[in-house]
């Protein structure tokens, strides 16, 4: 499996009177994430399955990935909590994306690569970042191929534009 672990894009900060799951993306977060998705597209990335947390910022982030999705999108509460067997048992497909939240995504990456979630503390996953893993979706059985920050993804998009404009 190729697994793309994606942290949601920039969202409005926590504030009084608004529950955490309700926080939407900021306009800048939406715009930048769309650009990042174009960067993924320039890399030739396509998913046959997309899983995302039910929280609004993850739903919005997943929504923008629909252009890269060839199969089904599935909402799951296993991406709105610490990673566990329930999440791994749910994942199926050859090229899969999961959209969720920190610190759980770092814990997931650490669990899948090093076999333990505690190593997640040494992983920094910015908002709108994409970690690309490969292997079997079981603890310790995956390798981290790349960790792409939003800046890198947007740069890939610009590079793709320059190529297509020079022919």
């Amino acid at each position, binding site marked *: 499996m190729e697994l793309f672990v994606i942290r949601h894009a920039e969202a409005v900060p926590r504030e009084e009177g608004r529950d955490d799951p*309700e926080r939407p993306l900021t306009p800048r977060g939406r715009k930048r994430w769309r650009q990042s998705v174009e960067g993924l597209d320039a890399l030739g990335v396509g998913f046959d399955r997309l899983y995302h947390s*039910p929280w609004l910022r993850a*739903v919005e982030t997943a929504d923008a990935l629909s252009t890269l*999705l060839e199969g089904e*999108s599935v*909402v799951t*509460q296993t991406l709105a909590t610490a990673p566990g067997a329930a999440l791994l048992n749910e994942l199926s497909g050859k090229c899969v994306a999961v959209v969720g939240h920190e610190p759980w995504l770092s814990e997931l990456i650490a669990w899948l690569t090093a076999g333990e979630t505690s190593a997640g503390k040494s992983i920094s996953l910015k908002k709108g970042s994409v970690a690309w893993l490969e292997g079997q979706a079981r603890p310790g059985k995956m390798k981290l191929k790349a960790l792409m920050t939003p800046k890198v993804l947007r740069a890939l998009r610009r590079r793709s534009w320059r190529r297509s404009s020079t022919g």
Partner: protein
Amino acid sequence: MAMAGPVTSNGPVALTRWLGQLKAALPIARLGVDPEGVHQLRVALARIRLWLWLGRWHALRDDVDWLRSAAAAARDIDVRASLGAGDGGHALRGNPAARRQLLAALSSPRTAALLEALPLLPPVPADTVRERTRELARRVCALGRTAERRPHDSGALHQLRCAVRRLRYALECRGLPAAEVTALQDSLGEACDCALAMARHGAPELALRRNKAERAALKQWYALKAPLRRLAVGRGG
């Protein structure tokens, strides 16, 4: 058809009302005694699906479709029963496989996640709803012209039925009158259900009912053509 709730035709459209209908239908569908519960569940999900389309949401559409199709087998059985065709009223509670599929879906983590996600979605802006409603009206006009040329083609009528239903939901979302559109949907529904039952189970006794429904649908379509054309070009609401 009475409009459901005080909704402005020009404001943003929230999902609240359709979500309320979904939550009301769930326990009735779970009990499995009243087939109307399954029907209301599917109607609520169809409305939510349409709302997602109005708002140009791609996420969550597959989840709604999955839940609707889980209830589809149960609904088909009830429709056959209401027509008195096929297996002679093999109701939901008498079909263990359809019931199990539906119950499994209703209690699954995927449904729980969907019910958590839907209330968090913001209202769809009014101008987006208007633009999307015009698209729907244009589609109904195009499919209606096809149905005029082929008034007994069940495929053409089915496509028109689906488009009319979606337009009806969009009008209801906006608080616009939808009685005539609903009547057309009902006639098309009767015609299509009869055609399907005849194709699957014989039931030649349904032919008269089907013809009557097709004639009613055609008449209703002709009455709606002009208002729909106006709606399609943005002059009707």
